[in-house]
């Protein structure tokens, strides 16, 4: 069953008018396939209807100038540094085909995490705070208490540094495209959900049970 695939428009490079990939023609229904790494980028016409198409960075918008327009369910997402994915949910057409388009974007900086903790702030002073941290890589590692300078916290998180605040702390490397390693320490504070009226009411209802056990009621 041959169907036309729409052309994909690159925001950076304009319409792409490459022909289909020969390697993908004749793909069976429901199967998955990947384009060869050497395949030319972005076909204007394919004789399959992919369910999922992985596009290189910068390509998110399907052109509408196709002989058979796609349904409205095309969703483009930036899922990683390396690729962008466009999800096609095409009812009644070929499903489960993945077409991988070779990456065009230059390689980016990546991170390597060596150690992660979850922490809870216990005390806060003018320029530092103490926190109890728990090793996220080892459930049996003993909890530790650390004192950290407030300047280690990003400006956007500073107002969150309060007793009881929860944060994540990752220590590792940042690795440049050229392979240069830099040791890093990153603190990320959680935006804890706020107490709602409904939750407080539910807590009060729950408290009635405890009152019975405590013998208050």
């Amino acid at each position, binding site marked *: 069953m041959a169907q036309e695939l729409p052309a994909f428009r690159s925001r950076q490079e304009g319409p792409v008018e490459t022909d289909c990939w020969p390697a993908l023609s004749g793909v069976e229904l429901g199967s998955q396939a990947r384009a060869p790494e050497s395949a030319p980028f972005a076909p204007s016409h394919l004789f399959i209807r992919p369910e999922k198409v992985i596009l290189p960075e910068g390509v998110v918008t399907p052109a509408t100038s196709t002989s058979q327009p796609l349904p409205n369910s095309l969703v483009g997402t930036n899922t990683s540094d390396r690729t962008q994915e466009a999800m096609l949910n095409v009812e009644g057409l070929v499903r489960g085909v993945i077409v991988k388009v070779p990456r065009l974007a230059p390689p980016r900086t990546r991170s390597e995490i*060596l150690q992660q903790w979850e922490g809870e702030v216990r005390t806060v002073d003018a320029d530092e705070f103490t926190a109890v941290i728990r090793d996220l890589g080892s459930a*049996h590692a003993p909890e*530790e208490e650390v*004192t*950290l300078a407030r300047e280690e916290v990003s400006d956007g998180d500073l107002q969150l540094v309060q007793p009881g605040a929860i944060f994540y702390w990752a220590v590792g490397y940042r690795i440049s495209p050229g392979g240069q390693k830099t040791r890093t320490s990153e603190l990320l504070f959680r935006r804890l959900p706020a*107490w709602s009226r409904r*939750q407080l009411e539910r*807590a009060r209802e729950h408290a009635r049970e405890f009152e019975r*056990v*405590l013998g208050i009621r």
Partner: protein
Amino acid sequence: MIVDSCIDRQTRMPVAKAYLTRLGVALDAVKLVVVTHWHDDHMRGAAEIVREAGAARFACSAALRSEEFATLLACGAESMTSSMTSSSGIDEFRKILDALRQRRARGVPAANAGPDHWATHGQVLYERPARDGVSQARVLSLSPSAATVTRALRELGQLLPQEGEPKRRIRQGANQVSVALWIDAGYQRALLGSDLPAGTGPSGGWSAVLSSSTRPAQRARILKVPHHGSQSADEPAIWTEMLEAEPWAVVTPFASGRTPLPTEADLKRLIKRTPNAYCTGRPQGWSPVRRQPAVERTLREVARSRRTILGPVGHVRLRYSLEAADPTVELFGGALKVSA
């Protein structure tokens, strides 16, 4: 009896349970479990003890007998937003109530379903008459005072979260609600100081104990030093009015917080009062686990201080006959004698 609880960081087992198991004593034989207050460092593993010591009576501070505390327990359950908040003393207390509720579900008489004793000053928590050649024994709570219980209601109310506030860990209340205990057994007497502070006015803390008409007239030979030997819990009058000269004093370290306890000054003060002072662990906490070199280098650059909160289990064992002989002292794990 078992007073408060902590856990072995390696086995994750309550230390008191492990100790009794080593002695061949079943938890069923325990007559009384006391949780002196609801701070984390006094409660870890307490629910497991309450659950397994099914025949024991359970006592906790009368300051917790309130709708405010029940609501705080419920809010603690609602605010468990991370693995950190699930390890708090309030969470452990909720587990204790679950254990007590299960007793009720098993048909245990209602008197044993909730706390059997809301401990307050001058209350007998356990009493055994002399019989079969064994001396009488009695456990008496010395605190909290009635005024402290009243004040605690207001304080607990202030700890309750308000609409719009982030769901942080429930803050812990003050130490003044702590239950200090007096134990009589034969000719021996012990004073367990919990975390009761010294100076909270004449109606609270040790001042209230000392001025109470229900305070025992005798003197104790053994002291569990209050609040990790801190200055804030140091009441000189208990040494002159409630303790024998040169008593056996045991202090437990607290490695968390701005200043680990006891400080050097606390230890110096202690050994001025008695040469028989012992500590169950290193007062300044324990070195943290070593990580891989790159992590260690980063930690040295970023963290201004770093220490492990829970060290290896330390144990000071005082054993004595029920006659007037001095106790024998044995030290286990990281326990040590305090010296100048």
